[in-house]
């Protein structure tokens, strides 16, 4: 009720929460960068996390990839068919998937699947005193838990994006063939001709940044969970919401940087 009757107070509280989250995430980032020497020592943990992230994201990426491509092909194709240009649908699908849809949709999947898992796992460790136990043993929890997760997701995100892009383009091809009656060879020829190297590497670079952000934000929220199970739930929800918002904001600035 207070938030509705006093909008100024609500804005102030929201701003202070944003600044608090930003400060906390940056602190973890700085601490993590300081732990870079541990990367070889953590290689086993990094590989284990890569396995978790890739296996977790892979099946959902198939569904999201194929339907993203199909929706793109359908929307663009039907509009273009009005001008008799539906043969060009391959160009639209390929460019959209590689530049935007692939990296963003893959990152959303990973934020929902892996980011939430990371926040819940670390949050549970925090409320059950496992993080305290690490600190008492003079083991830095950021080097031990956060570093492998962030590196793993930053590596897996671009790999899954390549996969989502390919599946999406294929899905678009199926819709072009079945609904728009554009044959495969024509669809793929336009897709191939339109795509530039920049489209591919800019999308993959975006994915790398998104993966890094998702893991960093999620681990940060987990490490700051408090008040038992309810606190872990709240941290998990915040990890996903903040990751989604951060992906959108960074997407804009990265697109602006590349194009």
């Amino acid at each position, binding site marked *: 009720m207070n938030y509705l009757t006093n909008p100024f107070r609500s804005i102030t509280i929201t701003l202070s929460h944003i600044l608090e989250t930003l400060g906390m995430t940056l602190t973890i980032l700085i601490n993590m960068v300081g732990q870079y020497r541990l990367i070889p020592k953590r290689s086993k943990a990094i590989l284990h996390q890569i396995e978790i992230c890739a296996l977790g994201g892979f099946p959902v990426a198939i569904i999201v990839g194929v339907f993203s491509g199909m929706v793109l092909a359908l929307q663009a194709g039907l509009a273009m068919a009005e001008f008799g240009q539906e043969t060009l649908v391959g160009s639209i699908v390929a460019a959209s998937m590689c530049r935007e849809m692939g990296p963003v949709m893959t990152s959303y999947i990973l934020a929902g699947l892996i980011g939430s898992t990371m926040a819940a796992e670390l949050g549970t460790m925090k409320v*059950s005193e496992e993080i*305290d136990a690490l*600190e*008492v*043993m003079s*083991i830095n929890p950021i080097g031990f838990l956060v570093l492998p997760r962030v590196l793993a997701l930053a590596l897996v995100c671009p790999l899954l994006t390549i996969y989502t892009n390919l599946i999406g383009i294929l899905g678009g091809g199926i819709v072009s063939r079945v609904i728009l009656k554009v044959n495969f060879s024509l669809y793929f020829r336009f897709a191939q001709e339109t795509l530039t190297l920049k489209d591919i590497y800019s999308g993959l670079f975006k994915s790398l940044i998104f993966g890094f952000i998702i893991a960093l934000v999620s681990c940060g929220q987990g490490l700051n969970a408090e008040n038992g199970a309810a606190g872990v739930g709240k941290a998990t929800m915040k990890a996903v919401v903040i990751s989604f918002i951060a992906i959108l904001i960074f997407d804009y600035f990265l697109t602006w940087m590349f194009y």
Partner: protein
Amino acid sequence: MIEFIDVYKSFNDHEVLKGLTFKVNQGESFAIIGRSGCGKSVTLKLMTGLLKPDKGKVIIDGIDITKATPGKLAQVRKKFGFLFQSGALLNSLNVGDNIALPLREHRELPEPKIMGRVSETLKRLGLKHLEHIMPGELSGGMKKRVSLARAIIREPEIILYDEPTTGLDPIMCNVINKLIVEMRQKLKITSIVVTHDMNTVFMAADRVVLLYQGKIISAGTAAEFKKMGDAYVKQFVLGEAAGPFQDEDELKLKEKSGE
């Protein structure tokens, strides 16, 4: 030697410690008793630098850890072994890896020697051949003993026990109490036990302090506590419902409502 000098600690508006002062000598077995929520566990967390006091000094072997750099704090923490109330074993690691963790992380011994030390420590605590079991498969008493094994694996100078017998059956309580005595006698380490179990106090402690409303209200040897005429001590030792102790939860509620 461990020294608390006029330590204050509050959480939000609730003042937990109000000028706590005490000293623990090397090799001594020191018990902190008091009702739930009186700040016993907070005292242990302040001792290991997991929490920072609002005011006052916490001195460990001449170093004021409230002003120590992270590097110095890590050095001081190496003196400690900590048995957490919940055990705080890392659920993703098996028993052997949990116990070996501090040795592996600090690369203090080659791997074959680490595994030898793990088996030896498990044997000492009556837990032979448990190395490959996951913490989730252990009973409460076993978890505590594995946690104790992890706490002593690096042969610490000081060992902290946070409610070591809470949630255990009377037989297991006795096993844990005997282990505390044995650890002290065999390893000649300083022990600090936080508990409300008077059996633990009488079996394992040289000196006892009773904490109430953020301060020490009674201090003496375990034998003195048994015979003490002080109304607070009497009520606590005998576990009587009626007496001078006020309900801590009720006090907190009154404090919140400004009464």
